[in-house]
């Protein structure tokens, strides 16, 4: 009866719709975010993650409205990220009903921002998103701007720094695997797991249920995030949980 490992469907939101780019190319429409959130809640998702991938400020207001609607009827933790740059952004998302906010590029630009945000809002709601790309067999670097911009920062050192700054959780995405459906980079996940004692979410590359189990058993992740396997009806969250349970992983019955 250990702490359950979490399954977190991720909703990339652009212009008020859930979208999913496959290999960064065609963006497929996956529906209305409030309806999608309702469906995953009913299937027993342990948490939901909304990532704002839009560029315009008008559309950012759309996501705040989506979070408000979801928070009024879905009573599981909601993490919201994408373009979080200031304490004012965080305050607006928390007031809309987000429980945690995910900080990515802004943390790289100004590491003190994470410390300031944790101090002001509490570590429990500060998730630092780490987009890492493998540069050597056992070395990963942080990339920003959707994986296009290198920073020269070592991903494992960065994870330690963010833990020390007061992050409550890390969201670790392999930019090599994201969108490829070839499974998590579990060497990366294991290196993160060994470096910090914060909980972390593994992300990037899930193509099937076995990948979710591997992220937990091989990658030592506390939670696994996936998008396309759920969005297009290939699998339900319930099926994913049944698979993890059969692999001996503690999960929550939530459906």
């Amino acid at each position, binding site marked *: 009866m250990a702490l359950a490992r979490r399954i977190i469907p991720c909703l990339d939101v652009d212009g008020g719709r859930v979208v999913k780019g496959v290999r960064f190319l065609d963006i497929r429409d996956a529906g209305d975010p409030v309806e999608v959130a309702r469906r995953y809640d009913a299937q027993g998702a342990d948490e939901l993650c909304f990532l704002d991938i839009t560029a315009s400020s008008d559309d950012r207001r759309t996501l705040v409205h989506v979070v408000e609607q979801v928070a*009024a009827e879905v*009573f599981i933790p909601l993490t919201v990220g994408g373009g979080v740059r200031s304490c004012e952004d965080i305050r607006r998302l928390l007031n809309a009903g987000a429980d945690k906010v995910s900080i990515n590029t802004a943390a790289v630009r100004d590491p003190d921002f994470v410390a300031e945000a944790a101090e002001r809002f*509490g570590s429990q709601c500060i998730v630092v998103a780490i987009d890492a790309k493998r540069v050597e067999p056992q070395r990963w670097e942080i990339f920003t701007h959707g994986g296009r911009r290198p920073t020269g920062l070592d991903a494992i050192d960065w994870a330690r720094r963010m833990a020390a700054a007061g992050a409550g959780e890390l969201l670790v995405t392999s930019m090599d695997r994201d969108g490829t459906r070839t499974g998590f980079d579990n060497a990366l996940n294991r290196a993160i797991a060994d470096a910090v004692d914060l*909980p972390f979410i593994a992300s990037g590359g899930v193509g099937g249920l076995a990948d979710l189990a591997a992220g937990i058993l091989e990658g030592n992740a506390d939670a696994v995030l996936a998008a396309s396997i759920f969005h297009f009806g290939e699998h339900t969250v319930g099926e994913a949980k049944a698979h993890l349970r059969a692999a001996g992983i503690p999960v929550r019955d939530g459906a």
Partner: protein
Amino acid sequence: MAQHIAILDYGMGNLHSIAKAFEHVAPEAHVQITDRAEELHAADRVVFPGQGAIGQCMQRLRTQGLDRLLGELIAQKPVLGVCLGLQAVVAHSEENGGTDCLGLLPGTVTRFPAGLPETPGGRAIRIPHMGWNTVRPTQDHPVWAGLAAGERFYFVHSYHVAAAHPAIAGQTHYGVEIASALASGNLFAVQFHPEKSQHAGLRLLRNFVAWQGA
């Protein structure tokens, strides 16, 4: 007359979720987020939430005179403590270099020790304790009605009250045995977040709304 549920606002964390959850389970009720003594006195029941650091939490309660008020409210009506609202009711916390709490119940709040195995022979616990863990009720209480032993609730915290507590009402294992719920008189306090614990959490909130107190 419709119930009046007051959620104590003292600037510690986001109260949106908990207010929405009460509006969901008690659609007829008047759910109010407030820091005003007269409204808290007028309410049928009070929710005492809290997120963040205990030092700042206690400082704000004292500055606003809510420390004494909470004791008075608990003498009068059902009060639900949530997360920091559980930790604040005991005597002392080791967080923030040592912080005196409300002392409405005995006990101390300590940090999870690093490196403990999560389960015997298992991997080390991660801190904060974040996610869905099981709760075993340790006393019969109307707030537990319909909730089975081993029901999972959503936790997020780095400090805890040990399970060896005279008012323990629910127990959870995470490296150590912790008090996931305390109950004494009109006070029921939980370390987890019922407002984020889907069916089980909403059931607990519904039970609290129906509870007439001690």
